[in-house]
């Protein structure tokens, strides 16, 4: 069985009945990388937050299961759920600046996790933090450990969050756009590093991105989300040979290729959007009746 299994997960905005997630199902096995793509606002971060148990208060889960290592998190009492998630899953959040505490030095923010979650000695945690920063290609780990978040560039902050997610060697990592602030050379090194760590520890990785180029390099499986609904769930190779869903095909066609500047970066055509909206509405209607 997959380490992470989500079944028919639905969520809505409390008091508004506005659906944010629509019967989402997806699985990530140990040692596997699943990409999660879809337009801005589709609900990718919501899925990540639901897994980690950190949904905003305004959002309510209305149905479904989130199984972590076979146990449905949604059935556990809050304290037990938090413990279980803390021990086996980590998030690389989308927004590096707000995820870091502005008034604390970086070093403490990485080592806390090791000390609190794994019960390490402080000295050992500090050595590990230094090692991790070097692994994510940070040139001056000593300075960075003593810095406050605002003293670092965007890409440096993002790499710190990657390092701290891997620090405790979790069995599942949800990486929410982990390389968007990185230039492509660093991105490449980081992606290789993520793959290496992930292969070494057999981590299950859910990789949120909008970059299908990145998907083609690191993912084996892919889910395409539209308006909180999975419209395609596929192996990566066949996807690039020919997506099944018209919306996924349009996304792929719109992906920029620097080798072919003229043919790329167009908005998804209106007709495709209308068709996928109809599909979502139909699915809602069926779910309402059944």
């Amino acid at each position: 069985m997959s380490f992470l299994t989500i079944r028919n997960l639905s969520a809505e905005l409390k008091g508004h009945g506005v659906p944010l997630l629509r019967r989402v199902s997806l699985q990530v096995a140990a040692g596997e990388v699943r990409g999660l793509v879809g337009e801005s606002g589709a609900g990718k971060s919501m899925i990540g937050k639901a897994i980690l148990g950190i949904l905003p208060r305004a959002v309510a889960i209305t149905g479904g299961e989130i199984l972590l290592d076979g146990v449905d998190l949604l059935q556990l009492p809050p304290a037990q759920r938090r413990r279980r998630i803390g021990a086996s899953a980590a998030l690389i959040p989308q927004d590096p600046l707000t995820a870091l505490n502005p008034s604390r030095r970086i070093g403490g923010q990485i080592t806390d996790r090791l000390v609190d979650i794994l019960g390490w000695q402080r000295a050992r945690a500090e050595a590990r933090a230094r090692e991790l920063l070097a692994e994510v290609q940070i040139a001056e780990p000593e300075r960075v450990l003593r810095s406050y978040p605002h003293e670092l560039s965007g890409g440096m902050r993002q790499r710190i969050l990657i390092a701290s997610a891997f620090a405790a060697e979790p069995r599942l990592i949800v990486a929410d756009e982990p390389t968007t602030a990185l230039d492509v050379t660093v991105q490449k090194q980081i992606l290789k590093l993520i793959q290496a760590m992930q292969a070494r520890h057999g981590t299950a990785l859910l990789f949120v991105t909008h970059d299908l180029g990145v998907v083609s390099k690191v993912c084996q499986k892919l889910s395409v989300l539209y308006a909180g609904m999975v419209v395609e769930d596929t192996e990566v190779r066949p996807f690039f040979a020919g997506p099944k869903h018209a919306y996924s095909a349009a996304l792929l066609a719109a992906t920029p290729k620097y080798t072919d500047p003229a043919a790329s970066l167009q908005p998804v055509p209106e007709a495709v959007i209308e068709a996928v909206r109809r599909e979502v509405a139909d699915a809602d209607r069926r779910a309402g009746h059944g």
Partner: protein
Amino acid sequence: MAEPCAELHVVENLHLSLPDMTRKPIFGAAPRIEILRGISFALAKGSVVGIVGGSGSGKSTLGRAMVRLLEPTGGRVLFDGIDITHRGEAGLRPLRRRFQMIFQDPTSSLNPRHRVRTIIAEPLRLHGFADIDARVVRALDQVGLAREMAGRFPHELSGGQRQRVGIARAIALEPDFILADEIVSGLDVSSQAQVLNLLERLVRDLGLTLAFISHDLSVIRRLCSRVIVLRQGAVVEDRPTADLFAAPAAEYTRELLASIPLPDPDQTWG
């Protein structure tokens, strides 16, 4: 009054250093870190230039110095012929509307206690615009945000939606110059295309001058006619985009091109 000139933004031998607080002794001044080490270029009115470079190479710092959120420690910054290098806030105020920066980190640049409507309207009010409500709606439309988003707080938006609020706030002011710091990297390709189309329209129809910081060379190639490559606070390459892609001169640029992941599982990629 300075004469209007063909070059809207000029940077001459720009230096910027900041105190390194991590090495500050208990008494006395902290040693300084050199972040920008003598950067020079001029941006013609209506031109679109890309700024690329590795993480920590100084792109955001350069951007902040160009719109005078930071004060350079050496060299000059001229905006429309006016020396703004060391101008005080009072002297900058009448110019501020004309040069806008859109920030890399959308969340920290949006006031969390204000609704989207206020975030976009506040600067308009400050700069004495009329028809503010209509301008807010138009800016939302232009960046592809639903009008109902005007009533939301930043934390009630997705990452890409927040990014577009930052873009809407800047373009609503109808500036002459925009410095866009990594503004599309968090957007899906379709929203990226929409934002790039919008910027292209503003350049074409309103003569906007644009400096576009991005690590995405596909986007740079599509949008910019010229590219400046930074490395450790200095310019290592400054050329027309077409030349750069045809024959990258700096080793770093070649490495950049080779590292781009194309949407193709069979690409040999390192």
